């Protein structure tokens, strides 16, 4: 037997508590904007999507960079061509995924007779704007975390996913309200 539940709990607690603390602040931002969310329930539908996509793309990118660093096809420099290609593909995938899902959400909400109070173009631009900002930041966080943890002798596989999902959840909510303010609804 190599696993013990006490060790699993002891190893999990510190990082989980830190992640939870940051997520609670994301929750506080949601609460201070609750009235706005009640007026535009379509954004309630969008929140798990915005955060989920960014977390997934960041984790995929992180896992690929981690494997690349382990195998040696990616070098620990900002000029690495393979790293840049992965980064560009992540941004491109973010664009396609966010546009597709934003349009889907809009029509699903429309069919589900959810109160809209917002046009398709406005909604898609808010979600896409949030998504692009988020993927930009998340990709750099992912590259930075993967490189830094590898340099410090940690396994990027253990570090990148929790960091990326937590940063993604929090910034996703911050950027969403920022974009709602910019579009001015």
């Amino acid at each position, binding site marked *: *037997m*190599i*696993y*013990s*539940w006490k060790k*699993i*709990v002891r190893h*999990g*607690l510190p*990082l*989980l*508590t830190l*992640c*939870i*603390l940051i*997520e*609670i*602040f*994301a*929750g*506080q931002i*949601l*609460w*201070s904007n*609750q009235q706005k*969310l*009640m007026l535009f*329930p*379509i954004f*309630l*539908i*969008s929140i*798990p*999507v915005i*955060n*989920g*996509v960014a977390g*997934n*793309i960041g*984790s*995929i990118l992180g896992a690929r960079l981690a494997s690349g660093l382990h195998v040696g096809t*990616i070098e620990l420099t900002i000029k690495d061509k*393979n790293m840049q*290609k*992965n980064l*560009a*593909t992540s941004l*491109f*995938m973010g664009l*396609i*995924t966010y546009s*597709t*899902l934003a349009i*889907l*959400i809009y029509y*699903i*909400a429309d069919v*589900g007779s959810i109160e809209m109070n917002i046009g398709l173009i406005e909604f898609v631009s808010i979600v896409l704007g949030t998504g692009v900002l988020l993927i930009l930041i998340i990709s750099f966080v992912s590259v930075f975390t993967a490189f830094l943890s590898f340099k410090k002798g940690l396994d990027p596989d253990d570090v990148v996913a929790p960091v990326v*999902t937590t940063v993604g*959840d929090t910034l996703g909510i911050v950027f969403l309200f920022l974009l709602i303010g910019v579009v001015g609804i």
Partner: protein
Amino acid sequence: MYAKEMLKQSLPLLIVCGLGAIIAGNTLSAMANILQKIPGLIIIIPAVIALRGNINTTLGSRLGSAYHLGIIDAENMWNDDLKQNIIGSLVLSFLMSFIIGVLAYVTSFLFHVQPDPFILIIIVIIAGGISGLILTFLTIIIIYLVFRRGYDPDNITGPALATFGDIITMLCIFGSAVFVGGFV
């Protein structure tokens, strides 16, 4: 390490996971009334969902490594290593759920608002505990099916758990809030 291959393999998965997130989002928007009835309920939602994701994906990836190390396989599933992993995940679920409730209450003072601490903590523990139980067993079922088919668990458990996890957790928060909300 080709970008085209990344696009071909990941993009469909991203869209499918996005559809799962839309279901989770619809559950959240169906909660609009209960969110207004229980002040501060919305604070805990990102944390509970992130908790589930973190606990169950690490469980999945540990079981994946255990498979590669030859410690568990389809014929030899219910051994002590698996049991220790299950206990570890469940203890973390209950412990962290309690911490979420406490943190949500404490941080609210910084924002000069006061939710009811007991209601929040009870809702989080019920939601976190039940979703923890469901998802831990779902993880084991997924791992078992993956073993029997001879696939690499590392490729499957992450996205599968992320997608099911969000939906099941959101439904558990909804159910728990309606249940507790019935008493206030």
